[in-house]
């Protein structure tokens, strides 16, 4: 197999991946990428879990330890089968809180703490170094296989150079496709598509080698079983601690590995893809694991003793002259290594730029040069440098550890490192009592213990930790030996590190959380995270600060770029119904802005930047209330409904009363009209009748005169009635013209008595007056007032039924009110009728005898009302008595009488 052909194939493959990523990015920007929303691509991208460790290292692991290799895939299987419990919540929270990395998740949950973000980033970067080194090692190894005739060809220095070239190439690819722009969601569609393609290549390659081994080299599955039983691998040792511990560890790793978080959570486009991935991803894992043991067994048979089992996947086809298959296997291995490195580098670079670089920039205040977009450039530069830095660290670890360890063992070191994040993460998702202090303590001690018991010893005794420490413990304390803490020796080093680091981590996390009190922000975020499924939407997190929209716009332009920021602000302004580019600073807008910015620079940094401008993000009472239970909202709503109902009932009742009154008035009006027509018709009938008679020829003159007299009387009566009606209507409508005059009450009474004297002149009334009291000067409408007196006295003359009729007139002065009583000695007016007599057309006795229309007292009442006084019946005086009260001096209001 010519080496140059190999290199050419590699470069062609990389170019192919470039093209795929490029096209996918373009299509995604244009929005025409239908298969990006397919759950298949999502599931394939998850395969980035299977790195060169799986492709090469699994066979080596199987050859050394039997079936134990399968634990690395059983853990993730269980996590995905149980997606409903953990993964679903994780994805939901990340979507609603716009989480961009695992450090972002932890930092955001525990009160948007920048410090926690830094710690988690540090853990992830440190744990990634062995992992990246392992990929470089495997690629270098696979190159070396082809470079010489013997399976373990090149000597180390050349291998190191290969690894350097590979590291450099990968860094370049990642920078080119991972950091082209800042996506608000931190999604990299081109990269995800390229990863999916690589997943297919990986699977096809491994399965091809497997199929080759099972059906071509051996004679089918039954033969394989026989071969297994006959080989060195017939019996294997299940170490219970390792079996359970590694299943647990791999389950923890699938949740906490930065690259897994990136493809699983951040790049997730649709929550429903999870349900497909829940069975499809375990299926992928099973397919990748299925042929591992057969390949190992056949490799042990065919290849000479002492060959590196890690490379069986390559060396077996080569040994059996299958050049094409070997090439395919090589590309598969290459794919698995490169996909891991690319995604991991992107994830780590995002974390470093959002949680380390941005806070540093903020801490040092505003930079010089405020052209729009310069902050974006800084962020992108930070990311590129981080990618290069991470690759350099990985390469450094590779050279320091000599690149000779078993691939699987190196990978497990990284697993234990990231597993330290697990307690804090599970607490973030499920426990409202988890606090920042607890998380800090747990993460810190877990990280430290991991470093001491596993990471640093991996460099070899004496490299970082002095050899004597391994024997005698730290500071000579025996119970602080890196591989035998607290005197528990004889434990497998991996399990030992796993146990101690996680146990102390969890203990301090739980203890710290229970003993400390969280800040309001922590509690708010805690409720939002843990109750992610109950909430209909996130509540606004900003109380109205003193931010100027222009300041916010300037800041947003620096981060999002001028066009994007302006478009965002304009859209918000329009949503608020405003023209122009500056919306009002409402909590909803600030919240939206924070979310948008956190897509680019991380939640903690976005929060801090807005806080700088808005002058503090206090958690207001409204925030806390908004997070409260739905029950409280329901109660409030129903109380409001009750109040509305009460109001409606009241309104209905008022409407009913008004309707009743209107109906009554209508009835009264009808009665009035019928009465009038009756009253008018009666005299008219007489007039017509008698004038008809008089039109006859033979009517004697004395009858004519009499009839003419009757007609005359009736006409007068009619006229008087019409006058009264007109008067009444004028008085009632309040348009009466009052003429003010001054006169003495005595004179008025004299005149009234004289005028009324023509009523029933034959009756002789005895008059009782008090001359002294009547010396009152009245300034009012004298004629109207006198008219009232005339009416009353006439009534007395008409209706008083005593034998010797007498009329008493009593005058009293009360302040500026004058009170005149007219009391006769008749039988008075019975109680039921006392209110009735003031109504129109009300007559208590036979109308003919009364001689009037019954309007007199009604007119009196209206007049008195217009003069600012009153008239009323006075009971208990022995006869009919009327009291007239009026002000001595009438004050007319401007604009006419009241």
């Amino acid at each position, binding site marked *: 197999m010519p080496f140059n052909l190999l290199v050419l194939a590699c470069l062609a493959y990389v170019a192919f991946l470039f093209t795929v990523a490029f096209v996918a990015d373009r299509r995604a920007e244009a929005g025409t990428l239908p298969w990006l929303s397919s759950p298949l691509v999502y599931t394939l991208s998850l395969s980035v879990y299977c790195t060169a460790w799986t492709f090469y290292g699994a066979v080596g692991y199987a050859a050394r330890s*039997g*079936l134990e290799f*399968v634990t690395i895939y*059983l853990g993730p*299987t*269980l*996590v*995905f*089968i*149980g*997606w*409903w*419990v953990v993964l679903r919540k994780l994805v939901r929270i990340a979507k609603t809180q716009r989480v961009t990395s695992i450090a972002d998740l932890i930092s955001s949950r525990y009160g948007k703490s920048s410090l926690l973000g830094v710690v988690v980033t540090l853990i992830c970067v440190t744990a990634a170094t062995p992992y990246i080194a392992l990929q470089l090692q495997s690629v270098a190894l696979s190159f070396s296989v082809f470079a010489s005739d013997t399976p373990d060809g090149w000597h180390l220095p050349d291998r190191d150079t290969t690894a350097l070239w590979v590291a450099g190439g990968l860094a370049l690819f990642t920078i080119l496709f991972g950091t082209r722009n800042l996506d608000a969601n931190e999604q990299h569609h081109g990269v995800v598509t390229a990863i999916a393609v690589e997943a297919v290549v990986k699977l096809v390659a491994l399965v091809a080698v497997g199929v080759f081994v099972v059906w071509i080299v051996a004679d089918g599955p039954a033969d394989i*079983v026989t071969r*297994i*039983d006959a080989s060195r*691998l*017939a*019996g*294997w*040792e*299940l170490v*219970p601690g390792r*079996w*359970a511990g590694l*299943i647990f560890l791999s389950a923890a790793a699938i949740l906490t590995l930065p690259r897994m978080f990136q493809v699983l959570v951040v790049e997730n486009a649709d929550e*429903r893809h999870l*349900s*497909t991935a*829940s*069975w499809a991803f*375990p*299926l992928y894992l*099973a397919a990748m*694991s*299925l042929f591992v*043991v057969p390949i190992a067994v056949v490799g042990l048979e065919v290849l000479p003793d002492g060959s590196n089992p890690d490379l069986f996947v390559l060396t077996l086809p080569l040994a059996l002259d299958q050049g094409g298959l070997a090439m395919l296997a090589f590309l598969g291995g290459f794919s698995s290594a490169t996909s891991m490195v690319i995604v991991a580098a992107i994830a780590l670079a995002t974390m470093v730029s959002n949680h380390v670089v941005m806070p540093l920039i903020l801490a040092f205040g505003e930079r010089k040069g405020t052209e729009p977009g310069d902050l974006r450039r800084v962020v992108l530069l930070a990311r590129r440098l981080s990618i290069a830095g991470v690759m350099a660290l990985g390469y450094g670890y590779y050279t320091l550890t000599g690149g000779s360890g078993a691939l699987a063992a190196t990978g497990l070191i990284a697993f234990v490192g990231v597993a330290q994040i697990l307690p804090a993460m599970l607490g973030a998702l499920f426990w409202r009592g988890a606090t920042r202090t607890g998380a800090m303590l747990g993460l810190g001690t877990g990280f430290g213990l991991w470093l001491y018991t596993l990471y640093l010893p991996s460099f070899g005794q004496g490299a970082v930790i002095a050899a004597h420490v391994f024997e005698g413990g730290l500071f000579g304390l025996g119970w602080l030996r890196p591989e035998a803490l607290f005197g528990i020796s004889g434990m497998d080093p991996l399990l030992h590190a796993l146990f101690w680091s996680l146990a102390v981590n969890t203990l301090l996390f739980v203890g710290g959380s229970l003993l400390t009190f969280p800040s309001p922000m922590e509690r708010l975020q805690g409720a939002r995270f843990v109750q992610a*499924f*109950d909430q209909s939407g996130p509540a606004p997190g900003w109380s109205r600060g003193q931010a100027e929209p222009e300041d916010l716009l300037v800041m947003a332009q620096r981060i999002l770029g001028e066009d994007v920021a302006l478009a965002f602000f304009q859209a918000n302004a329009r949503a608020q119904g405003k023209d122009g580019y500056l919306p009002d600073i409402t909590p909803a807008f600030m919240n939206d802005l924070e979310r948008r910015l956190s897509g680019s620079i991380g939640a903690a940094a976005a929060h801090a930047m807005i806080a700088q401008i808005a002058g503090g993000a206090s958690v207001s009472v409204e925030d806390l209330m908004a997070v409260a*239970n739905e*029950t*409280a909202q*329901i*109660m409030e709503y*129903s*109380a409001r409904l009750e109040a509305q109902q009460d109001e409606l009932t009241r309104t209905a009742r008022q409407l009913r009363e008004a309707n009743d009154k209107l109906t009554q008035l209508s009835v009264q009006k009808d009665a009035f009209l019928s009465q009038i027509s009756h009253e008018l018709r009666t005299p008219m009938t007489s007039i017509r009748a008698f004038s008809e008679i008089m039109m006859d020829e033979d009517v004697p003159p004395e009858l004519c005169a009499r009839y003419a007299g009757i007609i005359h009387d009736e006409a007068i009566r009619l006229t008087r009635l019409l006058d009264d009606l007109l008067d009444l209507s004028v008085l009632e409508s309040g348009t009466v013209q009052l003429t003010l005059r001054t006169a003495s009450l005595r004179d008025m009474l004299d005149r009234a008595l004289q005028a009324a004297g023509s009523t029933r002149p034959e009756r002789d009334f005895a008059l009782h007056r008090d001359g002294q009291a009547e010396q009152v000067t009245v300034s009012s409408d004298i004629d109207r007032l006198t008219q009232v007196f005339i009416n009353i006295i006439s009534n007395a003359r008409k209706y008083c039924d005593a034998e010797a009729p007498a009329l008493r007139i009593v005058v009293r002065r009360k302040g500026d009110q004058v009170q005149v009583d007219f009391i006769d000695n008749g039988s008075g007016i019975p109680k039921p009728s006392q209110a009735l007599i003031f109504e129109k057309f009300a007559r208590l006795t036979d109308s003919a005898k009364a001689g009037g229309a019954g309007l007199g007292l009604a007119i009196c009442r209206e007049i008195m009302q217009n003069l600012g006084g009153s008239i009323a019946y006075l009971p208990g005086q022995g006869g009919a008595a009327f009291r007239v009260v009026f002000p001595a001096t009438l004050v007319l209001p401007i604009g006419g009488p009241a």
Partner: protein
Amino acid sequence: MKPPRQPVFVAPPIYRSRRLRDAARFVPVLGAVLMLLPMLWAPEPDGARSTARDGIYVFAIWAGLIVATRLLSTRLDEDTPGSGPDED
């Protein structure tokens, strides 16, 4: 006014969907137990375990879990939109 209480008796479809979710929570536990079961088997008298037999066991359980999850996920997909409160 007292807060609205969870009804004791719910309609059969809601009951079914809640039991479906319970099944989704139970299957991983079952899977974990089954996968850890090999720890309990006593090895052969000569102290070695059969790779072939254990291998077949592991992959058989694996396939079974995948099929069970496939069935559950399909049912959950149809079920999820708007089917009442999430948690019991």
